[in-house]
Structure formats: C-alpha cells, structure tokens
C-alpha cells in the first residue's frame, strides 16, 4: 500500500472554460493567496503539407504519468512557496480551439506562482508519457512531436 497521495490529472476530452472558472472560484476562501498563475494549452489548427489539423487525440501511459507527475509536484512544492497547484491534461479527442492542458499555481506573492507554473509546463511536456495524434480534416493523422 502506497502512502503517496497520487492525484489524477487526466480528464476525458477538452477542458471546459467553466471547469477553469470553478477551479478559480474555489480559491476565494484561500485568503492567504495573492497571486494565481495559469497556463492553458489549446489545440492549434496547424497547416501541415496543405492539410489542417482538426483535433488531437491524446493517449498516455497513465500509471507512469501519474507517478512522474507526483514526483514533479513534490519537487515543485519543495522549490517554491506555493499554496496550491492543480494540473489537468486531456485524454481522447480535443478539437482545434479547445483546451487540452490546464496548469494552475497559487502563492502569497506573484513570483513563485508564475515561476512554478512555467516550470511545471516545461517539465510535463518533457517528462510525462503522453502522446498526441494530430488528426487532419480528411481523417489521416500524424504523431505530434514536442519541439
């Protein structure tokens, strides 16, 4: 039995703006917070060889991703004086214009929240076993690569 509190970060399909609003609203009782930083990833309608991306389908090695995210979370809380950190990533299909990633950090003063948010985004792109399949309007696909 693990004593680690491994949180789920995965949601099925896109992350709705109303979900983000709820997440923000929940922090109004946390009156030690002075600054919130949010990053959201949105699926781009990229043009690749004359075809437009209509959606990205995400899959993940979920257990490993959650374990890795747990480690990142621990390290970020060690490094920055954060009050809160929330991370959500889509699985399944997210259409162009929809949100696939939501990272939300909060601290008493603005700088730790901003630095932590940026660092979490950088790290999760590199370290989490998640894959995006870019689906074109003609239903052909190619596998996304993070640059």
């Amino acid at each position, binding site marked *: 039995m693990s004593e680690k509190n491994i949180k789920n970060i995965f949601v099925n399909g896109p992350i709705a703006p109303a979900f983000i609003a709820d997440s923000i609203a929940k922090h109004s009782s946390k009156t030690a917070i002075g600054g919130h930083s949010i990053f959201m*990833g949105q699926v781009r309608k990229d043009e690749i060889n004359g075809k437009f991306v209509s959606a990205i389908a*995400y*899959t*993940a*090695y979920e*257990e*490993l*991703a959650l*374990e890795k995210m747990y480690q990142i979370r621990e390290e970020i809380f060690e490094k920055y004086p954060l009050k809160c950190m929330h991370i959500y*990533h889509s699985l399944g299909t997210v259409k162009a214009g929809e949100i*696939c*990633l939501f990272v939300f950090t909060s601290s008493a003063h603005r700088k730790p929240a901003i630095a932590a948010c940026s660092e979490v*985004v950088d790290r*999760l*792109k*590199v*370290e*989490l*076993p*998640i*894959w*995006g*399949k870019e689906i074109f309007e003609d239903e052909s696909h190619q*596998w*996304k*690569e*993070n640059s």
Partner: protein
Amino acid sequence: MEIEIISFGQIAEFINHQKIEVDGIADTDAFKRYLEDRFPTLKGMKYKLALNKNIVQQNTEIKNQATIAIMPPFSGG
C-alpha cells in the same frame, strides 16, 4: 520467462500489447536487440523503455513476469 509488452503512440501502430515467452533476454539491452530484430521499423525510431513502470536510464536486469513499455518521444501538453 514471460514478459508483457505494452506500447504507445506511433509504436502501438505496429507493436500490439502482448505477452511473450522467451529465454536468454537477461537485460534491457538484450531486449532492445530482440525488439529491433523482430520489429525492424523500430530501428529508425527514437524510443524509451519503461521496465515495471520505471523509465530505463541504463541497462537493467529483466526478471520473469516483467512488464516492459515501449514509448516513442512524449508529446503531451
């Protein structure tokens, strides 16, 4: 011995989840040689292994009933 193979992303398009019965695969380096021999497409690709949910950073011993994940470069976010 028995090894469970799971695969992700582009690699899942040509390597299915499967259990294999093999002998003589003592470590992850040997497993890579086995894989690339059986699935030549893999030779040209970047990929990482995870052995029992630990990302393989260096050659590691494989024991019976291991689960090995074959993972192309990550592209989340």
